């Protein structure tokens, strides 16, 4: 453990490698987190099935890949199918819990996540899957730093998706309606916005964003039916650090978490990766609770 740390500290090449990996992976986390912030802000729902959407997007890409089709089509097919799934879930279940307690939404989406997990497990099998891309690497400083082209492309893709979502929210009528509903659903309703369909579209857009994230996950990391929860937890953490509706903050904290994870991966070993995520979540929430408590005390 300490030896790894020493090696790490003495080799600045590794720093660059870790940071680059962290940035790329973190930007993928940020995508899923942005989706979570979107529905949390608009319809007051915490979606525990977020990670399962990501993994499902990954599996859609994997199916294309394993049946001989260019996996790049997954970039279009995964969000499309998940958009459909999002609409379906909204119109069957989510609309019933939208005005209720947040805990109800947590528990109901937890139930949905179990169903999706198990369905994926019985459809695609319990193996770890990966789509290998032979796009080659960029080697820097004499080959000691290797950056796969796939990672580089993923990073720019994340940025592109983030920009297009921002444009969508700012420029289009639907985007404006979504923002209006987030600010004040009743006023939006009075002004003639069909809030119910806005909620449905938001949920579906969230699922589609997760689909893109899943596409990127399967290209750069691995997928497995039961690895959805860590993505949900990362999203939740990122949203808590960044706050709702703060896209730049979401991207930055996503990248931060990505770098922290890559760093622990290298120094402590990858078996601590998941433990770290969940401990970090507990820590961040506890710190947040202390800060809020102190603020409450000052008010008195």
């Amino acid at each position: 453990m300490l030896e790894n740390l020493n090696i790490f500290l003495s080799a600045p090449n590794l720093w660059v490698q870790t940071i680059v990996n962290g940035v790329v992976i973190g930007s993928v986390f940020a995508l899923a987190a942005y989706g979570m912030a979107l529905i949390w802000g608009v319809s007051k729902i915490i979606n525990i099935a977020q990670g399962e959407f990501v993994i499902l997007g990954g599996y859609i890409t994997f199916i294309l890949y394993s049946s001989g089709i260019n996996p790049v089509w997954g970039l279009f097919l995964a969000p499309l199918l998940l958009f459909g799934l999002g609409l379906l879930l909204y119109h069957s279940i989510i609309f019933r819990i939208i005005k209720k307690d947040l805990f109800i939404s947590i528990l109901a989406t937890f139930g949905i996540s179990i169903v999706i997990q198990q369905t994926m497990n019985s459809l695609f099998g319990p193996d770890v899957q990966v789509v290998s891309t032979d796009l080659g690497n960029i080697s820097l400083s004499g080959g000691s730093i290797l950056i796969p082209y796939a990672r580089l492309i993923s990073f720019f893709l994340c940025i592109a998706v983030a920009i297009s979502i921002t444009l969508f929210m700012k420029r289009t009528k639907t985007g404006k309606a979504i923002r209006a509903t987030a600010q004040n659903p009743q006023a939006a309703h009075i002004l003639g916005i069909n809030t119910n369909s806005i909620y449905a579209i938001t949920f579906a857009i969230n699922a589609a964003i997760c689909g893109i994230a899943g596409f990127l996950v399967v290209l750069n990391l691995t997928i497995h039916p039961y690895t959805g929860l860590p993505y949900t937890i990362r999203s939740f953490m990122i949203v808590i650090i960044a706050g709702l509706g703060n896209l730049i903050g979401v991207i930055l904290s996503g990248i931060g978490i990505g770098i922290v994870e890559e760093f622990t991966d290298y120094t402590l070993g990858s078996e601590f990766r998941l433990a770290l995520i969940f401990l970090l979540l507990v820590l961040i929430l506890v710190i947040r609770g202390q800060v809020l408590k102190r603020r409450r005390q000052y008010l008195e």
Partner: protein
Amino acid sequence: MKKNNLVLLALIVFGALTPFVFPNYLSQISFFWIFVILAITWDAQGGQLGYNSFGNIFFFGLGMYLVPVMQISLYFDLGEWTAAGGTKTFTHQPAEYFIGLFAGLALAALIPFLVSFVLGKGILNLRGQYFAICTLGLGVAAAEIAGTIDVIGGGSGLTVPVWPREGVVPISRDDFYYLISFILAIKCIFFFQYVYKSKLGYLFNAIRDNEDKAEAMGINTTQVKLLNWSFSALFLGIAGGILGNIIGFIDPTDVAFAGSTYGVWMVLMAILGGKGYIWGAVLGATIFHFFQEFFWIYFLGWQRIALGVLIVIIVVFFPEGMMGWFRNRYPRWFGIVIEKKNEK
């Protein structure tokens, strides 16, 4: 009040007669008693305090590990034991087994009880959804960490000591574990009933209804919340220790810190029965136990999907649970009398 005692008496009679009436189903019914404890201890937060916890499984798993660790390390070297794995050459003498077991159970009560105070200081400050997600993280983190500790078997699990040879002990293994889980469940019911009737119970409900107001009324809310959680932790620790010995093999993610089975089930049982009622928790545990046995036997492979669907159905269509439904339907049973308007 009378009805309450009647139900309790019926439950005790059922429990006492079970070894004679259903001798073949003893281990299933021991599970049922453990489920009752899980539901009641979850309801203490979810129903009475208004803090929906996903992390109570943490104390359960902690207790489950503590009992065999104590049992083993009192007489053998824990590292050697785990290294030997399934093919063990170490055996406990009957006296050693029981001394180890009860010392372990005492430890499994004490340590979760103390740990809950330490953790609660930080975590119980969180409200609503933040508390729920934080405790969810706690449970999973515990499973991941337990999976990396080699001395307790790491990811491949820990086997518990074998029951002493037949004939040496006057009671069979199933009977013994049935008896202690039954006694613990009844104690748990008595204890929580007593607490809910005392002043502390009213403080719990005051915090559930409006925490800020309760604080403004001069209640030390942190202390009350800590007490509530530590009561649950104590019972959960012992229950975990018993269940670990009943199952006989402790896996960090599937048995001890099993968020996707026991961790969700306890929430589901309490909600199914009706949050905020001790008998709701018992009722929920009963119904859920039948459901679970049924699906695990007849729909093997699909049971998890059925569980997910069940969660969604209960939460979406039935959030008030059985007791809530009864309360709406027959308010008189709950002492709610609607007085008729006086006709002039």
